[in-house]
């Protein structure tokens, strides 16, 4: 049987997390190929409909990465992301979507190792959950 390779869509803020992903590249760190990145200016820009649409389009997991609390380029956009994430998580639970398919974390521009770690953990976790079939939800 072919091993399941989950499709993970990552929404990365322009200033910290996208830079963190670039740092992982500059350091030539091996990172799972499963992550497909959408760059946004701020994690606070991420509309819950983007996440829902991402699952509808066939993603197996969604990763939201922003600046660490207190480090947001726009002061507090990441707090807005956190609030929406909390609501969104409950909403997905209501739809019967496993909790581990959506994850929010903070990655700074220098945290290449953390970036790789978060992505690898997410991929492993979603692999265990198996493919997501939105027609069932």
């Amino acid at each position, binding site marked *: 049987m072919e091993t399941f390779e989950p*499709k993970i*869509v990552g929404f990365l803020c322009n200033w910290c997390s*996208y*830079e963190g*992903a*670039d740092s*992982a*590249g*500059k350091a*030539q*760190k*091996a*990172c799972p*190929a499963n992550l*497909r*990145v*959408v*760059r*946004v*200016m*701020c994690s*606070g*820009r*991420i*509309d*819950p*409909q*983007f996440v829902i*649409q*991402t699952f509808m*389009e*066939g*993603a197996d997991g969604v990763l939201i990465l922003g600046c660490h609390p207190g480090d947001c*380029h*726009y*002061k*507090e*956009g990441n707090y*807005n992301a956190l609030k*929406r994430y909390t609501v969104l998580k409950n909403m997905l639970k209501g739809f019967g979507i496993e909790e581990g398919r959506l994850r929010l974390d903070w990655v700074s521009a220098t945290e290449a190792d953390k970036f*790789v770690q978060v992505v690898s953990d997410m991929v492993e976790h979603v692999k265990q959950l198996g493919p997501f079939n939105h027609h069932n939800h």
Partner: protein
Amino acid sequence: MGEKIGIYICECGPNIKDAMNLDELVTFAQGLENVAFAKTFKTLCSEEGKALIGKEIKGNHLTRLVIAACSPKEHEVTFRKVLKSEGLNPFFLQIVNIREQCAWVIKDRSQATEKAKFLIRAAVHRVIHHEPLEERQMECQPDVLVIGGGIAGISSALVLAQKNRTVYLVEKLPCVGGKVARYEEVFPNLECASCMLDPKMDEVLHHEHIEVLTLSEVQEVLGSYGNFIAKVKTKARHVDTRQCIGCGACFEACPVKVKNEYNEGLNERKAIYVPYAGALPYVAVIDEEHCLHFQGKDCVACQKGCPFGCIHFDEKDQDRELRVGAIVLSSGFDLFDPTRASELGYGQVENVYTSLEFERLLSSTGPTGGKILMKNGQPPKKIAIIHCVGSRDKRYNEHCSGVCCAYSLKFAHLAKAKLPEASIVQIYSDFCLPGKASQGFFYQLDQDKKSEFLHMRGADTIKIDQKDGRIHITYTDVNGKPAQIAADMVILSPAIEGARDAETLARVLHISQGKAGFFVEEHAKLAPVSTMNEGVFIAGCAQGPKDIQSAVAEGQAAAGRIISRLIPGERLTLEPMVSVVDETCCSGCKTCIGLCPYKAPIYDAEKKCAVINELLCKGCGVCVAACPSGAIKARHFTDQQILAEIKGLLI
């Protein structure tokens, strides 16, 4: 759609070429909808690469470009310029990051090729929704308002003032110079403060492009960056500044005596006075609160005494509206009030002074003419300097004021020079002497045995009483043991806090105040002199405790930030990637107004909807995601563009 997309895949030398199968990628990209062609090139960012793209935009009538190469952080701007030079809107471009986030992190060649494929597909889906964005410009006012005439404000004003730019320097006191003007000598080289400051004050007062408004306060600020309107109230001085030469005849005639706040209340002045010898402008001022004439009495003693006819009781306060493009707020600091820590005996035990009071005792223009004297007129035999009063103490302020250790050393140097027989003792909990010069200042003092150092556990263990005619200090030493010492004079080093009127200024200027009353900067590291209100800058101790050098640097930095954008005769460029409200969809719920940290959206009562000030918007998109009506669009990061990108990543 009818778009013609050109796709360029950069080999980036071997960086991308060796990590994936580019032939397969080109074939895949060519098969995507709306794509005119896809091709590889060795280095697209080279002059040769840019020339090729430029030539082909025209030759192939391309309407959109997708460039798969390094991170957009590297060359998005480079390639936008190429589009622009060919007459194509620079935003009709999408960069695909196949180097940092693909070639360099995916070790398996076929996996890297696959990932690059859907990243390119997502970009193709996204780019057809790109809208042409234009840099726009607006008229602006090059003049600048500086609030606070201390060393930071003066430094800022002198950099800002130039041909075609007027600087209004607003100072609430009758004279400029701030706290530094009250010091005689400053650390770490015991430089003469007035030799340093006086020429600057003179320059400000006589500069053809600076208007100094003393006795003035900003009461209201309207508008935004480029076009602020500041309402300023100037209190009547009742003395003609053009005629008064500060001869002193008026204050000799005045019968009223009040405490002189410029000497920290250590001596008296009259109700008409010059704050201190050397105050600039050196012009008298009437203190309406204490002047008998303004208390309804018929006293005109000063008017009779003035040989130049300068005194005008009927002068009225004036209100002015200043139109300025930017504002520098340099309102300085006040010291922690030591009466809040009653165990320190300040105000109760005689000869316990704050550092500012001691500065005045040291000053030749101070209450004792520069002699260190106790209340009984005798010089002290032993002076104790207590560090960290109200700072590094969770009960009051957590912060370290950063300058007290250095000025305490200065006090020891100066006191020892004036009173060679006296012993000086420093009771400290930690020494903070940053920078390139202060440590040497310490070694010199230590080597010459000019000061004794007692290590306490913390200032919260100190207790000060009067005992047997001397001052009795008890504290816990660094080892936790109780210790005591007697002294004749005590100098407290209270924490530096934001100025007492900072709260009012924060409200007037729509900026935030953080701990200890300091104003909050836009970004602690990257934007330390700007604030969340674009066009309002902060400098000096208004931002946080600092030494003279740093206050000057901040004043000048704020001026530099302003000069780089507010250019006389030129218009202000607006960022194109901002958010806009669709007035037909907005329900006027005001959700966006509460969320925006930059106060960019305002409610238009007439239109009954929110309007975003494009000058203030930074384009983060927080309001866009929060708008329940979907009425706000983040330019270049629209819902449509992002949803198309998601689709392209996954189909």
